[in-house]
């Protein structure tokens, strides 16, 4: 009798805990973090193969300088990402004095057109005859833009909750056009050349 009571009590506890989302059978307890490999600055006047538009320590984000960001290998993880947890992008601000402005002005927005590392202010890509942005500076979904919050792990970093972007685009439509960093005020962000503070994505996987 006591044995049966213990079994029932255990099952009820398990149901309650699972309903609360605990324990996480098969998911990582710590989010996996990846450095973004697709980082491309676009600004008027710079050609597609201008070497200052990639591989830099920092990039300015302004009304006439945007940064395209993408985790190129996201498709290898899409089916395993747990959307009950956040999919976050982390951007580190290069100048401390830009931090306050970044929290108010720096937005990450879903890009809505396929682009490559030879993109420019006018062109999403120059290959195969070229494909222009509908709007110079990049095509993005303004309604999906996200402001960030201070990272709990670094006073210089801002995290952006892009879970909805992941659900709407890579998971929902199978398209990974990445995101674009825009701002109405000048903010310098750390580039992919940095080992510890490069732009990155984090998510939980099953």
């Amino acid at each position: 009798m006591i044995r049966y009571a213990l079994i029932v009590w255990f099952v009820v506890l398990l149901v309650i805990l699972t309903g609360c989302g605990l324990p996480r059978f098969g998911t990582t307890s710590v989010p996996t973090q990846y450095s973004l490999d697709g980082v491309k600055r676009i600004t008027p006047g710079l050609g597609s193969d201008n070497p200052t538009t990639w591989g830099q320590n920092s990039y300015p984000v302004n009304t006439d300088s945007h940064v395209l960001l993408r985790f190129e290998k996201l498709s290898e993880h899409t089916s395993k990402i747990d959307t009950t947890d956040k999919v976050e992008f982390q951007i580190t601000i290069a100048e401390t004095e830009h931090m306050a402005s970044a929290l108010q002005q720096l937005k990450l927005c879903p890009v809505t057109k396929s682009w490559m590392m030879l993109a420019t202010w006018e062109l999403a890509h120059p290959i195969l005859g070229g494909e222009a942005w509908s709007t110079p500076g990049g095509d993005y979904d303004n309604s999906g833009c996200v402001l960030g919050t201070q990272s709990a792990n670094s006073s210089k970093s801002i995290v952006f909750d892009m879970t909805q972007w992941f659900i709407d685009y890579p998971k929902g439509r199978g398209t990974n056009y990445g995101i674009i960093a825009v701002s109405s005020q000048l903010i310098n962000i750390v580039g992919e050349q940095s080992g510890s503070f490069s732009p990155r994505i984090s998510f939980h996987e099953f």
Partner: protein
Amino acid sequence: MGDRKRYILWVLLFLCLIFTFSLPLYAITKVGNSDDGSDLEGLTALESGPIVAARKKALEKLNALNVQGIAGLGMLAPEVEKTSLYIAKEDITTSLASDNGHTSMSGNVYARTMPQPLAATRFFPVAQKLEENQLVALHIHEGLHRALAPSVREDESLVGKITLAITSPGASHDSVKKTVEDILPKNALDPEQKEVTYFTGSSVGYTYRYFFRPNKPTTYQVDSMHLVHSHLYPFGGKRTRFGMGIDMSLVNGPAGGNMGPLGLSAHFRLFNVKGFEMQIWGAIHLNTLSAEELKDSPFGRDVGTLGFSLKKNLKTAYIENFTSVDFGGSANQKIGLVDYKYSYGSVIDVKIRAGLRTWKIDAGGYVELHLADYLKVEGGAFSKDTGRYRILSGGPELTLELDEWVFTLYARALLNSTKNANFDFLGNIMGPGVSQGSLGLSVKIIF
């Protein structure tokens, strides 16, 4: 007089009559240029000396000009080489119309021959006073009397003009060929050779190509290109030639010049009896030997080609059909942290060239169609595939031939394409080039 005596007298009279009437048959012998053969007396075979040495010089000249490949002159060199040489004891003066062109100012005949193959050549003592170049011309002149078609071999005017064309300073294969084609009637051409166009030879040359790109984007900008080629055909016979070629290039862009692809090729030319020049070739353009900047670009792939062409040169026009296939390949380009792969499908290329020929100029144009399987670009999360596409192009060509030198000016313009394609899509700098089109200037020497 007795009957016996009378009978003997009639027999003797009869024999005298026969002898008298038959004398001309023995005395008149057609030898030489319809002469009476009196110069056959006292002939000595020539084995050495300036006349024999001059024959060797004459042969060298004929071989240098490749007269064997000129319709109507195919037997000239063998006739000059194989004729037996004799020298007479005494000079003779002009007595035949056929001696015109064979005589000195004082009317002494230098040489005579029969207007038929393999006849001997008879020189007279006055010929020994001639200079070497005059003896060379004399050997060639006499050889023409035996080598030309029967209908023209005794025409001193024609033979003299051809002799002059061959022996004049600056004579070339093309100039002799033109003279022969201009003055010999068609029925005088060698029935075997008139259906053969002889290949003009190997070539070494330089080409400059300028690519124009009116406000069109590109992944790797190429502004111009310098090409140097050396195509040598040392193997084969009169009707076929086989050889190899090397092409080297320098590619210019906004950042300066870089070593471009290296081309290696094998060519096989042959001629059929219909007078068409047929060529088969295989080539490979090795981008692996290019500069690093070009290797790490969409054009950094090796391109293999197999081709076939048929060309017909008429007196006033030319036409050529040209077909080739470029095999697929790929190139890689790393930009930042992303590797892009450009995959090129195979390309079928067909071209028609045609134009007019006048004096030393060929003026015409061409139309060319490239039909490609695909071009795929993949890297990271980016992927594009054109699927099958085509490019139609064309342009003018202008060629000037000055003896061994050939100058060509040409242009290529994109006329029509699907999928917004341009020549960048083909990834073949040394072939059709890049961008929207090009302008080219080449100069080469043929030998």
